[in-house]
């Protein structure tokens, strides 16, 4: 086993061990915060449901009139009843969103970092980015269907396209704001251009890139919903929600809850990744 490999695995093991050890209390506190937030959200949802549905007539002759806004418990009971079907849609949407995020990251981070650091490249390419960035990407949805067909590829490409700009702009900004002393420090130690990227630019911008990824989760889910409801075929929470919104609204809201869970899972996953790869951000000064 090479020394370099051993160093990398050792670093990862130490990171995971430290993350487990140091963060135990923090994780406990965070879980409690999430539980309280979810309880507050459910309460607010229930109150909103009661207010919105106050004019819906009571069941007459065994016929239940459709509620405008089903309550959280109706949605949750539908979630349990349709668990198997929702799971398929959930996994399908999760896979698309995850793949889109990875594609966007892989494409946007290197370009963003180079734009942030290489002046000439930035001078010529940034105007193109800033002209294309504000275009409402949803306007291009038909174009995506024409190019990629009506399958998963369109949905993934659409979301990846939207997230690409989000992450690119963040990575570029983060690379521009790097403390020059860090660059000078490695330059004076004889670093090559590649080593500057590896030892300074990438680690220094990682927290900002992960923040942009967090923002991207919400944006990505919104565009995934649009893409999934625009396509006539295929699985996915978007289609599930759209198909049931008119006549099986409780089920549609069960789908919305599943989307919320998907967002939460991804959000927490990014948090955990950040705690491991940016451990230096979470340490505090200790007595020597």
């Amino acid at each position, binding site marked *: 086993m090479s*020394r*370099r490999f051993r*160093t990398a695995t050792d670093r990862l093991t*130490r990171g995971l061990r430290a993350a487990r050890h140091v963060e135990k209390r923090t994780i406990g506190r965070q879980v409690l915060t999430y539980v309280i937030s979810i309880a507050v959200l459910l309460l607010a949802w229930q109150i909103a449901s009661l207010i919105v549905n106050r004019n819906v007539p009571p069941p007459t002759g065994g016929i239940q009139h459709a509620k405008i806004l089903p309550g959280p418990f109706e949605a949750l009971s539908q979630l349990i009843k349709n668990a198997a079907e929702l799971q398929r849609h959930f996994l399908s949407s999760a896979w698309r969103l995850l793949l889109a995020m990875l594609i966007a990251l892989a494409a946007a981070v290197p370009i963003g970092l180079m734009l942030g650091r290489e002046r000439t490249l930035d001078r010529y390419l940034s105007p193109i980015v800033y002209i294309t960035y504000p275009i409402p990407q949803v306007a291009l949805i038909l174009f995506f269907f024409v190019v990629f067909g009506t399958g998963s590829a369109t949905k993934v490409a659409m979301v990846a396209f939207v997230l690409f700009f989000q992450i690119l702009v963040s990575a570029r900004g983060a690379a521009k704001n790097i403390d020059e*002393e*860090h660059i*000078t*420090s*490695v*330059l*004076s*130690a*004889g*670093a090559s251009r590649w*080593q500057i990227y590896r*030892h*300074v630019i990438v*680690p*220094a911008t*990682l927290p900002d890139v992960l923040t942009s990824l967090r923002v991207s989760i919400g944006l990505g889910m919104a565009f995934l919903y649009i893409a999934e409801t625009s396509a006539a075929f295929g699985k996915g929470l978007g289609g599930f929600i759209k198909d049931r919104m008119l006549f099986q609204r409780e089920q549609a809201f069960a789908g919305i809850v599943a989307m919320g869970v998907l967002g939460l899972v991804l959000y927490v996953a990014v948090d955990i990744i950040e705690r491991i790869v*940016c*451990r*230096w*951000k979470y*340490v*505090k*000064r*200790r007595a*020597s």
Partner: protein
Amino acid sequence: MIDVDGVTIDYGAGGRLVRAVENVTFTVVKGDSVALIGPSGCGKTTILFALAGLLDATSGRLSIDGAGIRGPQRSVALILQNAGLLPWKTVWQNANLSLLLNGEYPARTACGVLDELGLGAVARRYPAELSEGMKRRVGVARALSTSPAVMLMDEPLASLDTLTREKIQDLFLQLWREHGFSLVLVTHDIEEAAFLGRSVLVLTERPARVKEIVSNPGMGDLDYRETSAYREVLGRLREALER
């Protein structure tokens, strides 16, 4: 021997050319120490960066042991104002950065320099976990890791409290005597210049020119601060700066 011969350095700022250093000449004999002192922003750091191979001189010649400086060299170490530590690397990784960049993987237990500087116990910590004084010592450890022949220091103790500053000045003096490197120190603190510089170059406002060279042969002992020679040098430096 470090030789700075008639060096002028211009750089572009906001579309116009700014002269930072003008016709500066001085030499540092092998193993000797020189402090550069002058008003803030006068161009002291520019001279240091040129010696580190990070900047090119517009005219004149910079050389170490007769060889012109063309880029950073392993035998020249630079300590920056805030120690230049990378927050995402541990103390050990920061201290060994120069070696790691050159493809050398020092054994994990080889913390000789860290131990020498009392940092062995914190080798696995991140800079954010250290006091300011310890961070500066990690910067020194990094500089010493390649056993340099020339040590360049750019206001290495700025923003430290007086006691910590004096302790680290003592450490610099001990290391300079034990390791035998040539030292070029940039500072705006006349006490630091008088304690660590065998000769002190007083520079003018930008563009930096040598206004006066104050000789300081008595330096080199830890109790030099208590001597009348030290106080006399301080007086001469203050006078030269105010002139």
